[in-house]
């Protein structure tokens, strides 16, 4: 699955791949797995309405999509996850000496992060949960990253730091919110700002895992 996802990120569309390239792709996945030091923190909070917010902290959850997603959810999980600084260093290393490998590794790392989060989520034991909504996607403002960061104390627990523009370092890190109590797993392009210009859509793909991909 990691390979499929990363190929998608790389814009793969059934081109012929040489044996060497295929080997390189596999070795990138292998190296990502070896170098990564995955870390995760997750905490459950109650949700309150009007405005929609995290009850314990009072942080308001902005965005129509979020409102829709969290309808009928009384609780939510905040989750923070990273593949660690050693991988970041490795990606940087390759971007200095071998841009092909840097690009393929970057895609492999993104795919691995996604897979790692999915697997972790599965184990939490909440069958009735929404998909993982990450600030910056759809109309869920990127600024919410700061709130999650603070609540989960991600700097101390995962050594993730956040820039003043709410970007995460290491780059292969993720902050998200999952609603508990409803089973809205289906993502849609809906209000995505990139809807008209999305390179995935142009290729007939989605940036997220679709139902048909899940079943195959």
């Amino acid at each position, binding site marked *: 699955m990691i390979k499929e996802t990363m190929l998608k990120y790389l814009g793969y*569309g059934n*081109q012929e791949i040489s044996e060497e*390239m295929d080997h390189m792709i596999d070795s990138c996945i292998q190296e990502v797995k070896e170098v990564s030091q995955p870390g995760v923190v997750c905490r459950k909070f109650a949700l309150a309405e009007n405005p929609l917010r995290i009850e314990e902290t009072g942080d308001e959850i902005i965005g129509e999509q979020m409102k829709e997603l969290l309808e009928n959810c009384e609780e939510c999980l905040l989750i923070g996850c990273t593949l660690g600084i*050693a991988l970041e260093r490795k990606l*940087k290393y390759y971007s200095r000496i071998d*841009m092909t490998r840097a690009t393929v590794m970057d895609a492999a790392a993104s795919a691995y992060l996604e897979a790692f989060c999915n697997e972790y989520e599965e184990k939490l034991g909440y069958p009735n949960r929404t998909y993982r909504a990450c600030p*910056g996607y759809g109309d869920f403002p990127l600024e919410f990253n700061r709130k999650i960061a603070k609540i989960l104390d991600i700097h*101390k627990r995962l050594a993730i730091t956040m820039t003043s523009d*709410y*970007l995460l370092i290491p780059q292969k890190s993720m902050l998200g919110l999952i609603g508990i109590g409803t089973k809205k797993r289906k993502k849609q392009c809906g209000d995505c700002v990139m809807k008209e210009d999305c390179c995935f859509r142009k290729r007939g793909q989605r940036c997220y895992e679709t139902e048909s991909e899940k079943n195959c």
Partner: protein
Amino acid sequence: MLRDRIGKELLIFDGAMGTQLQQAGLAAGAIPEELNIDRPDLLQSIHRRYLDAGADFITTNTFGCNRLKMSEAKYEAKDMLKAAVTNAKEARRQAGREEDAYIVLDIGPIGQLLEPMGTLTFDEAYDIILEQVETVKDEVDAVLFETMSDLYEVKAGVLAVKEHTELPVFVTMTFEQNKRTLSGNDPVTFVNVAEGLGVDVLGVNCSLGPEELKPIIDEILDTAVIPVMLQPNAGLPCLEHGETHYHVTPEEYVEAMKDYMARGAAIAGGCCGTTPEFIRQLSLAAPKYVSERNVVKKTRVSSQTKTVTFGDRVIVCGERLNPTGKKKMKKALLEERYDELIVEAVKQDEAGADVLDVNVGLPGIDEPETMKQVIRLLQEVITLPLQIDSSSPEAIEKACRYYNGKPLINSVNGKDKVMDAVFPIVKKYGGVVIGLTLDEGIPLKAEERFEIAKKIIKKAETYGIGKEDIIIDCLTLTASAQQKEVKETLRAIEMVKELGVHTVLGVSNVSFGLPNRPLLNRTFLVLAMQSGLDLPIINPLDRELMAAIDAFHVLFYKDVDSQRYIEKQSQVEIKAVVPSAEFSLKDIIIHGLRDEVENSVREELKKAEPLDLINNVIIPALNIVGRDYETGKIFLPQLIQSAETTKKAFEVVKESFSSTGGEEKGPVIMATVEGDIHDIGKNIVKVVLESYGYGVIDLGKDVKIEQVVEAYHKYQPKAIGLSALMTTTVVSMEKTIARLREDGCTCPIWVGGAVLTEDIAKDIGADYYTEDAMASVTLLEKIIS
């Protein structure tokens, strides 16, 4: 005096503050430091309970009290700092412990990652910490940096304290179960760097319980010469119902800590989950005095994540990062194109070097500044410790200040003036210094060089630099000029070793002016190793030379069971699957066979003129690649691979151009705008543009507006390309464009990035938008004629 007690009497630190505040109702995400002003009674009572339980130190509630982390707090960081100290002092007064208990300014991580992985500069980190220290330095007894995970930040902090106060400095880092901090520092590297910086006490805190920390604590107790402090958690944190719990009882905690105290830990306390009861029992169980530890001082140099220890085997120092006699590197340094150096560093690393010498000394160059830049870039890519090679004390000082780790410093000699200039730097920043056995000239006799070595060691001692931080260079003489004296060097090594120091030699000098230099180098190296050479400075790409060291390790029982030797020497040469003869240069480019391209171009150049080769083979091949990408016949990695192959082809072709031919196209400037750290897209575009022969000045990521404007004036580019990944950073792209225009920039600006579109590009004032790397090429081919 506190300093008189540390390391002699066993002293007790307090336990957790956060856990106590949470118990008192502090909500998740709330700012604990605000309570210093809002709830002085609560803070005082917590301190008081720890003091009454037997703590000799109380730490102020100021873990995150820096201006960055406190930007959202309702009070000023400075006011919360002052209030915290006042609370601690008041508690100490109430407890009647003003004479024998100490208040420690608590400083946790800044919360922003330092360069090169992050965006915070070393100087900014220094300033932020200094502000904290300056605010309360007259009111506290010591400063504690705790829960640190980045040794570089520790360095900034320790320097800030030591350059402005006389206060004792304590440092504890937090290690994970893999025995590394979250930034990748290991215990031995931590000890080596922290001791070099002259901290008073070092140790571990947080993350794990006393049992789980055992392998890490063992390593620290075995290597640290200075007093060690321990503040583990009350076991591993367990998440239950959204709350963190710790399950180790005070009894279990104390039982584990007793062992460490018996083995020489000097200060014991607690971190998350520990309470006054833990401290009370700990205090009762603690012996009055610190048990002695017999730690052998060793010579060690470190990068941020790797430490090389001398004595067990020969340590190889790579000599190739030095412009002397290297035209290409001279040019690269003068043009500030440091990629060249990085590639050279990576090659030496892969060839098995342990340490890399870095020399950037060239006439007309700002050596201190260049040294700083180069070291920063090297440390971004390479994890080997570096050897700072300069005759300029200013360059050495700057390099030592910004170096991440404990460097080798090359060098001092027997002249007092040189030692007086360099030894203070070695002492202040912590380094291992090379001492050349010369003063007014190189003495011919071994005995004379031995005397100079003694003089250097003695003088270093007056600066507080121990023998373990000195490596003596007995100096290689050239066999073609001073044949008779060559063996004096070998004799001198044997004599100097008797002084209890390690030795270094630049080996290849010996063969200068004679044929088959590698043979002489190799033979001399073997003789020198037998005499006791520890650190040969050589070309690690010379495989035979490296193999001689492997053989020496076997024969001198330094490679037990010949493991390394077998591993390396039994490696079969891996040949390319397809011999290059089967592929034409055109195919090599189309298939992106980077390893084949150099030979192929050289072969072709025997038959064709360079310019014809470019126009008739390389460019058409590249055009096919471009077309295949656009039509979806190949995908991104294949495009990049071909681009990198072409770039290499160009490099080889250029070598054969006369000085007038083969001009680059452009130049163009590229930058990922301020605030954005995602630069992979820009890097891909850069490689592809370079493959089309464009000179790209890459300003990097998170590039300040001023830097772009400055570069525009400096390089007068044909176009400027800006990238941004996030909608939030497109704003800063707009500002960059606006400033460029204000400054009279008329050259075309093109933009790209995940969230950009044609429309947005227009809105923010860019001239062009390109969707991907190939589109950028097409655009530039069109607009730059």
